[in-house]
């Protein structure tokens, strides 16, 4: 039996994307549909065992934000502010007339300004304390990205960052919906941002064995569910969604892109970085998200998988999807194109899931040449598939065993 708050529809009235697939929602989405992978050698990582990543192409913060704003922001905040501007413009909300005190910000971020930290640490070691920027702390602290979004648009309501590693963006959106349902605010700016592609952090991920080593062909390295997958490709990006109660959105004549209908969360309580191979906790997150949506597995037509392209994630997740949905849902992982943007990934993928519902299409999983024979799923590959469906699920699972699942429905 569902509880009285189940199925609460949080209307998505604004979208913004800054991803390795492009700057802007439509350019990113077109490249995702075309399955054009974005992995490439990264000059900043030259000489390291893993010397490639998925960066936002052609992102020039000075040009888009102005130098006077850009120099004060960590790259994660720069990406987030640009995505925010697109999302707010898309929403049609007027910041000059809204009640800013009723506008909340809930953003996912995993690693804060670690690249800034790394550069400043080098300054301290090589040139002493007087060479360390006074902006080190405000650029590094993981909460700052939400603070900067509030400053950018005058959002004076509750303001926080959710940190659940690779699930952060999905946790943020689920938490944002809860906040809206509670009545504490009327609008929530939510999503995720991450820009942690520094030499130290990439080396850390490499030492854990989490990253693909396909240095000879970075563009083919992120290959979720493929038999030859060997790890994820680290990425950067930001996604912003504007959420409102559906009655408010309709009353002001806003365009509703989609609806966040359910949210489920769980913890593996198993190991720091290895997912519980039984998949019990991730399954619980999916089932509780469906309950929260007031829906059942048979209602779901499409799953945007966490699908990182690591051996263990994809195997564990495939088992869970099989158990809950059987083989009748069209599964994709958009990480094949964009890599894994960590704390932003769940939000980027929520946007992709909304666009999939809007267009009645499931994007292909880039680089999926040979489905892992142990995976018994209908994973979309090679070309987009027309799937008229009204309900989709987006999975996000983080290191630390933190899991967040969203149920998205068409307006």
């Amino acid at each position, binding site marked *: 039996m569902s509880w009285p708050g189940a199925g609460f529809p949080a209307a998505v009235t604004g979208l913004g994307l800054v991803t390795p697939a492009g700057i802007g929602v439509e350019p990113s989405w077109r490249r995702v549909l075309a399955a054009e992978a974005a992995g490439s050698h990264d000059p900043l990582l030259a000489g390291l065992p893993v010397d490639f990543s998925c960066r936002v192409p052609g992102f020039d913060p000075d040009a888009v934000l102005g*130098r*006077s704003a850009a120099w004060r922001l960590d790259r994660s905040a720069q990406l987030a502010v640009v995505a925010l501007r697109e999302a707010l413009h898309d929403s049609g909300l007027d910041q000059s007339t809204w009640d800013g005190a009723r506008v909340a910000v809930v953003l996912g971020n995993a690693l804060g300004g670690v690249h800034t930290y790394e550069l400043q640490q080098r300054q301290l070691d090589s040139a002493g304390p*007087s*060479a*360390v920027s*006074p902006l080190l702390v405000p650029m590094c602290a993981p909460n700052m990205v939400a603070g900067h979004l509030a400053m950018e648009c005058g959002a004076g309501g509750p303001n926080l960052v959710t940190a659940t590693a690779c699930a952060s963006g999905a946790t943020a959106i689920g938490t944002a919906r809860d906040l809206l349902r509670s009545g504490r605010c009327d609008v929530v700016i939510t999503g995720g941002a991450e820009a942690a592609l520094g030499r130290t952090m990439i080396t850390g991920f490499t030492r854990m064995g989490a990253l693909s080593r396909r240095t000879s062909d970075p563009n083919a390295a992120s290959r979720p569910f493929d038999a030859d997958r060997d790890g994820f490709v680290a990425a950067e990006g930001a996604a912003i969604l504007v959420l409102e109660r559906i009655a408010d959105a309709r009353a002001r004549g806003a365009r509703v892109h989609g609806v966040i209908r359910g949210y489920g969360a769980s913890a593996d309580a198993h190991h720091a970085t290895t997912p519980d191979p039984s998949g019990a906790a991730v399954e619980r997150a999916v089932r509780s998200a469906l309950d929260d949506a007031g829906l059942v597995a048979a209602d779901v037509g499409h799953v945007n998988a966490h699908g990182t392209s690591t051996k263990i994630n994809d195997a564990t997740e495939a088992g869970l999807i099989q158990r809950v949905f059987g083989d009748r849902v069209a599964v994709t992982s958009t990480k094949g194109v964009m890599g894994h943007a960590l704390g932003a990934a769940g939000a980027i993928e929520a946007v992709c899931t909304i666009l999939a519902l809007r267009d009645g299409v499931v994007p292909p999983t880039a680089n999926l040449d040979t489905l892992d024979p142990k995976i018994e799923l209908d994973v979309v590959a090679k070309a987009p598939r027309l799937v008229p469906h009204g309900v989709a699920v987006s999975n996000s699972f983080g290191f630390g065993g933190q899991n967040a699942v969203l149920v998205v429905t068409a307006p």
Partner: protein
Amino acid sequence: MSNNDTLDRLTKLLVLHFGASEQRVNGEITFEELDFDSLALVELAMVAQKEFGVEVDEQEITPDQSVQSVAELIDARAVTA
């Protein structure tokens, strides 16, 4: 008096590093008028030190100072250095 070269280089630093408006920066304008907060002034001491190779203490640059007076401070340090 600072020499014009120092003022020009400082002006360029304010525009390129801090994004100050090229139209607004001149010798007479103060850092307060350029919207420099306390963090930006510390950052200025840091980058000026690197650009000019002189010691500038972060407490030496205050919001009410003009660009010209900081150029003079840099020149004075360069002479004694």
